[in-house]
């Protein structure tokens, strides 16, 4: 068997085993899965050195004429993504061993995780767009099943998630077929499509929809927050936080770098950057108003995608590097944050911020790792988020995109504000009653969190290592060599440049917002008594979530309305289209009134029209 087939086939086959293991023995299933993935991870490590490996087999020819090739291609980009997919898979399975203990979840959980790994490996390694699409849809499907293993309300969340991703897959199908039709090949490495003509633009936009829906950017983001609450946190940490970002941004980068020719500053590039900037701002604002930790994190997961799209979409080498590095960093810290949320859920049983507080002393490891990840996502040096954001800012400066730059900085500031809130309400603040006997989680759950936190520090302090090892080769070569500044900038990481100042501004703004909210909180404290109701101590306690009132009411009067509607889901395309479709369905249903004469008249009129057209054409 070819070397490249192992990462796809081994998890797929290993995934069959847990189906036959009963619910009670799921620890065994988990350990088998862990072994399988560990083996594949080692394999992926060894593959990482073997860049440029190809495998090609003709699957079949449709109608005897149209060939469908199953072609795989390993090069630095796919090798890098593959490595991290397997890495996260390993951590998540390890974490799940502890997390799922005592939970009524079927062993098939591991099946789906393993198959997800297999399909992701396939999606990353393939060189054929159609095969990519197949793996892409299989991933959607598996995510759907994983969400359906979650708690209360999972079926609606899964339905929403599947609908949105299904729509994006449909769009991708159109894009893939248009490429096949107009350019005669589906091989990604052979394509180089100019985006001048309409077909090229349609194909690009269609594939772009697929990429951003998977990564979870606006306006196709709403599946991420929807599934956040019912789904198991390890699944959230695995898919929307890590894997889907890796894959979505991988595809986007392939689109921008390989398949299509996107000019810097062209309309398409600006379109992508607008999507990115809008995602950053709106999602982080939605995150500010959330009461549930998992939901809040999910909005941040959306918001962070904005940086990646902004970076990759700009077409400026340094920003692309920043965007791709941010993809990796985000997977690390967002995975860590979701795992922390999972730890809290496992021990406390809820992730409602209003009901939490003062956990720092009870769960010290969780606290520290969350703190590191939170600082990292807020772009505070010396953690990894800082470096990648810095690179994106640098790119924006280089391209003179001031509006996008401001949006990015403002988004970063709001992120910081919101995470200060999280840390406050989760770990500091007053402890609610009934949270006395909380213990730290098992080691199998601690270990992934610690590892990810360490990576946050490592990739921040020694940013050159991952950049040179993983990211630079992707952009390097050919046209990008002109940006000699890339190497310089990596060396000059610690030099005070304009971007560093901007980051500091961002941090200050964030702290100011936080301070303002504190002031506001004290006032609400007094207002509680106005109603004249007697409230118990639990309600008088000021949960960190009250901070958001500052943002919604005082700081941004412009957005107040938007928040209200946003909460109700009015901005969600899913609801709008659902409403329109519902109206159409109502009309059609009313037409089928159950009366035979109506149906007969359709038949007679139909026959008459047919006869008229056919006879007097």
């Amino acid at each position, binding site marked *: 068997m070819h070397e490249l087939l192992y990462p796809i086939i081994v998890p797929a086959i290993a995934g069959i085993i847990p189906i036959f293991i009963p619910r009670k023995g799921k620890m065994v299933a988990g350990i088998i899965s862990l072994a399988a993935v560990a083996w594949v991870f080692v394999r992926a490590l060894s593959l990482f050195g073997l860049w440029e490996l190809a495998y090609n087999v003709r699957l079949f*020819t449709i*109608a005897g004429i149209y060939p469908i090739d199953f072609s795989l291609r390993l090069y630095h980009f796919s090798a890098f993504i593959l490595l991290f997919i397997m890495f996260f898979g390993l951590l998540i399975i390890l974490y799940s061993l502890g997390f799922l203990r005592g939970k009524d979840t079927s062993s098939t959980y591991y099946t789906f995780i393993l198959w997800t790994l297999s399909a992701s490996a396939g999606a990353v390694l393939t060189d054929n767009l159609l095969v990519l699409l197949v793996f892409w849809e299989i991933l959607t499907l598996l995510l759907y099943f994983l969400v359906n293993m979650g708690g209360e309300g999972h079926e609606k969340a899964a339905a929403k998630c599947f609908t949105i991703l299904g729509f994006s897959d449909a769009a991708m199908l*159109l894009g893939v077929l248009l490429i096949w039709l107009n350019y005669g090949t589906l091989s990604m490495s052979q394509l180089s499509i100019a985006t001048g003509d309409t077909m090229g633009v349609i194909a690009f936009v269609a594939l772009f929809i697929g990429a951003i829906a998977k990564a979870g950017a606006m306006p196709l983001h709403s599946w991420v927050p929807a599934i956040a609450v019912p789904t198991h946190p390890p699944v959230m940490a695995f898919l929307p936080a890590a894997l889907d970002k890796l894959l979505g941004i991988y595809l986007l980068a392939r689109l921008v770098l390989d398949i299509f020719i996107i000019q810097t500053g062209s309309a398409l590039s600006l379109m992508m950057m607008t999507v990115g900037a809008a995602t950053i701002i709106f999602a982080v604002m939605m995150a500010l108003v959330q009461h549930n930790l998992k939901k809040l994190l999910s909005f941040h997961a959306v918001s962070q995608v904005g940086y990646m799209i902004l970076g990759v979409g700009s077409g400026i080498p340094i920003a692309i590097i920043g965007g791709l590095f941010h993809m990796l960093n985000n997977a690390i810290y967002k995975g860590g944050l979701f795992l922390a949320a999972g730890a809290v859920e496992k021990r406390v049983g809820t992730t409602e911020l209003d009901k939490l507080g003062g956990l720092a002393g009870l769960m010290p490891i969780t606290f520290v790792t969350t703190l590191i990840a939170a600082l990292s996502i807020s772009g505070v040096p010396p953690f990894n988020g800082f470096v990648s954001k810095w690179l994106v800012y640098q790119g924006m400066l280089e391209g003179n995109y001031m509006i996008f730059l401001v949006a990015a900085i403002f988004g970063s500031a709001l992120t910081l504000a919101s995470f200060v809130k999280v840390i406050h309400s989760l770990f500091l603040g007053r402890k609610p009653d009934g949270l006395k006997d909380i213990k730290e989680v098992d080691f199998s759950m601690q270990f992934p969190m610690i590892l990810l936190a360490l990576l946050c520090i490592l990739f921040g302090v020694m940013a050159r290592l991952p950049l040179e090892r993983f990211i630079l080769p992707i952009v390097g070569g050919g046209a990008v060599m002109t940006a000699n500044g890339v190497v310089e900038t990596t060396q000059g990481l610690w030099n005070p440049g304009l971007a560093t100042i901007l980051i500091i501004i961002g941090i200050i703004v964030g702290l100011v917002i936080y301070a303002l909210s504190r002031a506001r909180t004290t006032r609400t404290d007094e207002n509680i008594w106005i109603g004249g109701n007697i409230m118990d101590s639990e309600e008088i306690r000021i949960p960190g979530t009250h901070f958001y009132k500052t943002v919604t009411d005082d700081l941004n009067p412009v957005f107040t309305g938007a928040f209200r509607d946003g909460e109700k889901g009015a901005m969600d395309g899913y609801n709008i289209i659902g409403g329109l479709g*519902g109206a159409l369905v*109502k009309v059609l249903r009313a037409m089928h009134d159950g009366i035979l004469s109506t149906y007969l008249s*359709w038949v007679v009129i*139909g026959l008459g029209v*047919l*006869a008229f057209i*056919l006879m007097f054409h």
Partner: protein
Amino acid sequence: MQQYYPLFTAIPLAIAFVNLLITKINKRAGDYLALIATGVLAYMSIKMLFVGPFSYHVGGHLPPWGILLVSDGLSSLMLVVINVIAFLSIIFSLKYMTTYTAKPKYYSLFLLMVGGMNGVVITGDLFNLYVFLEIASIASYALVGFGCEKEELEASFKYMILGGVASTGVLFGIAFLYSITGTLNMPDMAMQLELVGINRAVAFVIALFVMGFGLKASSVPFHAWLPDAHPSAPAPISAMLSGVLIKALGVYTIMRIMFHVIGPNPLVSSIMMFLGALSMVVGGLLAIGQEDFKRMLAYSSISQIGYVMIALGLALNPGIGMMTKALAIVGALFHLVNHAVFKSLLFLCSGAVEYRTGTRDLGKLGGLIRKMPVTMTTCSIGSLSIAGLPPFNGFWSKLIIIMALLRAGYMVYGAIAILVGFITLAYFIKLQANVLFGKLPEAFSEVREAPFSMVLPLVILAILCVGLGIAYPFVETEMLRAAWDTLLDKAGFMNLLLGG
């Protein structure tokens, strides 16, 4: 094998009558008899796949005077679909039909329907086709009303009236064709029609046929009977109606007559494509709004038949290239086979759910995956397959159809086909969210897995769903290639008159 070709109708018809006689003596005998009969038919139909085209002269009379039976790729394909699904439905019925009275009559009607469908598929004589069409239709009218409750009777009556109009339309068309060509033998008629060309009378005949067979195939606007009739029938019958009957009586007849007798024509092509697109959209949208398990599936049938119709319509256009035509026909035939598999799977699933829970109201079901894991897994495979998700078979057939549409330059139709794929996904997610997942209602806490004889066909069909998708190359060479060669080869069909 060749000399046993008429047995495809003779066996089911004979067993239908034997069954009624023998069950007066022994009640259980009917079960075995029906099982053996359909099993033998299924086996024979699979064997027929590997027999080349031939024609059979009933009674030894030479055509065009005697009745001609035709066996080619298309009819072999249809025979496999009909008889395999019939066999599985009978297995399902063994247990399921114990909830109804008069089981022997059920088997007899079932076998009559199978015999009628087989007859439609194997015959090469237009009037004979009409007779078999009516046999199958009448049996299905009776089967729809089998429960004899308010809804069943209402559905049966509506179906009967609308089906009756379609049948008379078809008969009218046949009469017209006879008056034009002076023959009822299809290959002979094709020859005569080539001399006549498409005049106004033939155009009227086409309109009648599109109406008549279109109604049997339930294309919008002739579809209104289907969403009433299919849910009202007992579940195995729903599976047969939606999975097979509309194809054997509707789609197959349209294919046979339009491709072989009348011949490809651009106007008919655009009409069929339009009707197909309309069916796709209307059926899909209506399916979203349904609260009844089986009614949703019924509307979905309309939508999926639209895919087949649009691809066939495309292939009927003489103006497009041979390669695109081949693509369209492969797509249509593959989707036809696939739809038979997954739609009967889903209807049988609905039957299993109704058997255990007593309801098929989506609002009252939920969380059944914990209680009926096998049934629900197969249901999920079926619905994902029909929604066109890889690696299941529905993905490939839809992909091929869309490829053909785009290749022929029908961008709008291609986009509609993709959009309807998404709509299909939407309503099957709704189905899954309401039946498989979610909270298990209190009332169903004691629900168990369906009995073995009901689960077995489900599992076989689910394996087929996956298998047909993965083994596409095999499916194409062994099942579809002969059929599409047949459809594109009108001269070959006419030669069947002489050869043999």
